[in-house]
């Protein structure tokens, strides 16, 4: 490790879940609420110690419904807040995730995915909940979700998650899995002056009964509780001032569109994708999270064999990088989708490719087991 005079630089050998917790702390998280669940519990273990050291709060709630309710309440109390769980916990949280969306509450929700449905296989890594945060709560809405593939990315992406949550007043998800959460690797902490943090826009003074605190596509200022701002917050359909109106379809239309556009209008700022060896590629492999590690290895091997293959990886999985994939589909002949499930993102890739390129799904031989390099390589050779 090279020495440095800049403060706070360190590298540690960390478990993915611990890296996530440390990333949250760097991002300024002051409130963690959670309920024990494999394979996410280490995040809670770590936060139960670290939050109090940082003048923050940790609470082990009575269930996951309370955990999400607690972090939303804490966010209105003015602090950055997060919870961490696995699929069964997200299933319980979904109703209140909708409330976080509609009340435009910044918060971070970590899903260290395990085998499902139901109790499933708690320690097996699975990408089975990819659609759950985007479509699981009722109604029409947009959220942001990021898929890390390593402890370093658990750290880095958790900081990004807090930043996007603050900037867009929206719940942001980390979609990890049991292996990414439990593996241990070197994690480099940023120098103090490298850390860029976004903070929510706050309402400064009370602007009257019809103050505009919601439904701005460029994000309305948030009236933090306890400052005399007379915040009027409801999960019911409301207008810009927060007043409920559940009888006028025009108001519901306005609310749904503005909430969605708040995210979709800023896709360029929100969506992060990583492209490798795509300049001359005939085949692109689409993968994310843990699977990306196997894909990147394979692409490197394929390139060394002279095969024109590249990797397309969404770091932001929601909102879905539709335009980027459409562009990709005009450059390559074939897109091979690799994901550790039976094809959850595949239909979205296919729709985005819109017939420009052939899109095929290469299912894993065994769900929950990593792809073998030759499985992917054979498919590449088959389609090239």
């Amino acid at each position, binding site marked *: 490790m090279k020495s440095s005079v800049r403060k706070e630089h360190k590298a540690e050998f960390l478990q993915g879940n611990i890296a996530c917790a440390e990333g949250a702390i760097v991002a300024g998280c002051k*409130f963690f609420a959670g309920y024990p669940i494999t394979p996410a519990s280490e995040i809670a273990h770590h936060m139960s110690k670290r939050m*109090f050291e940082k003048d923050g709060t940790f609470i082990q709630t009575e269930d996951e419904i309370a955990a999400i309710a*607690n972090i939303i309440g804490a966010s209105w109390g003015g602090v950055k807040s997060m919870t961490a769980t696995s699929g069964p916990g997200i299933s319980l949280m979904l109703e209140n995730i909708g409330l976080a969306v509609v009340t435009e509450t910044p918060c971070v929700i970590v899903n260290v995915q395990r085998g499902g449905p139901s109790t499933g296989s708690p320690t097996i890594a699975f990408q089975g909940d990819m659609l759950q945060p985007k479509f699981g709560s009722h109604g029409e809405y947009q959220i942001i979700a990021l898929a890390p593939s390593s402890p370093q990315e658990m750290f880095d992406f958790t900081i990004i998650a807090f930043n996007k949550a603050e900037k867009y007043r929206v719940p942001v998800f980390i979609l990890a899995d049991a292996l990414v959460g439990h593996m241990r690797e070197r994690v480099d902490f940023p120098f103090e002056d490298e850390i860029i943090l976004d903070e929510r826009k706050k309402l400064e003074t009370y602007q009257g009964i019809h103050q505009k605190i919601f439904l701005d596509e460029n994000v309305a200022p948030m009236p933090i509780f306890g*400052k005399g701002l007379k915040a009027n917050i409801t999960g019911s359909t409301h207008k810009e001032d927060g007043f*409920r109106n559940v009888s006028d379809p025009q108001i519901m239309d306005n609310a749904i569109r503005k909430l969605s556009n708040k995210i979709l209008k800023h896709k360029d700022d929100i969506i992060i994708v990583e492209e490798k060896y795509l300049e001359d590629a005939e085949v692109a492999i689409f993968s994310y999270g843990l699977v990306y590690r196997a894909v990147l290895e394979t692409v490197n091997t394929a390139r060394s064999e002279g095969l024109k293959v590249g990797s397309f990886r969404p770091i932001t999985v929601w909102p879905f990088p539709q335009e980027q994939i459409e562009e990709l589909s005009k450059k390559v002949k074939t897109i091979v989708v690799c994901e550790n499930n039976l094809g959850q993102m595949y239909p979205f890739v296919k729709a985005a490719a819109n017939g420009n390129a052939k899109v095929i799904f290469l299912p894993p031989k065994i769900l929950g087991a990593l792809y073998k390099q030759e499985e992917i390589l054979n498919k590449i050779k088959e389609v090239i």
Partner: protein
Amino acid sequence: MKNTVEHPLKKYFRGEINYTTCPGCGNGIISQSILRAIDELNISFDQFAFVSGIGCSGWIPSPYFNTDILHVTHGRSVAFATGLKLAAPQLKVIICAGDGDTSAIGGNHFIHAARRNIDLTVICVNNEIFGMTGGQVAPTTPYSSKTTTTPYGSIERPFDLSNLSIAAGATFVARWTTYQARSLKNSIKKAIEHKGFSFIEVISQCPVQYGKVVGMRNDSVSMLMHYKECSVNIRKAKNMSEDELKDKIIVGDLVEKKNVPELTDEIKRLRREAKRK
């Protein structure tokens, strides 16, 4: 020029919007009791935050009270309020919940908040029915009552919410009916000043949905008179037999415990200890 007299509690309302409760509903009495308590305590309304859930009780503060209001999902108001209170412990957080909110869908949050002795005040409007959704049986509905989902009469025993909160560890508990509005106000004052989890159960009339169950449809006056006749103060009840107390409503300040550690204080202590290590 005409002389107009302003209602002494008008300053606590946002204005412009009218209440949506049914004629004869107990919500108005409870709203007044809360606001009179705050007015008499002479604490700035800006120091209060109200959290409410789904059900008619949610409309007591939301959106009418002119301070911070968080109107959330059914049954979860206590859990949201817990996060808010922990993040902003200087706030006085009051939850307006219903009996369904508190003991059906939200029962778990309710007992755990009581166990933690977090400094919240839950004012539970117990009308012994699901009013807003059309008069279905609640966990508080008396045995054998005919409701829209118990056409043959309820076969389940009701919860005693005050006793439930006491068993779970609430450190201030009072029960009144809407007939005893002034006593209710006095207990709300005590609850607001109490450092710890306080629970106030208000037996309240729902003349539209519960009125028809007890043959007093749209007759809130008869329901209030019934509360008057059935109410027995805890001081008197202590000397009465179980038989004498059958079908009575025991009212008064039921529990007041001091010196039980409160959650936000405990967290402050942990922060000091964590930094010393």
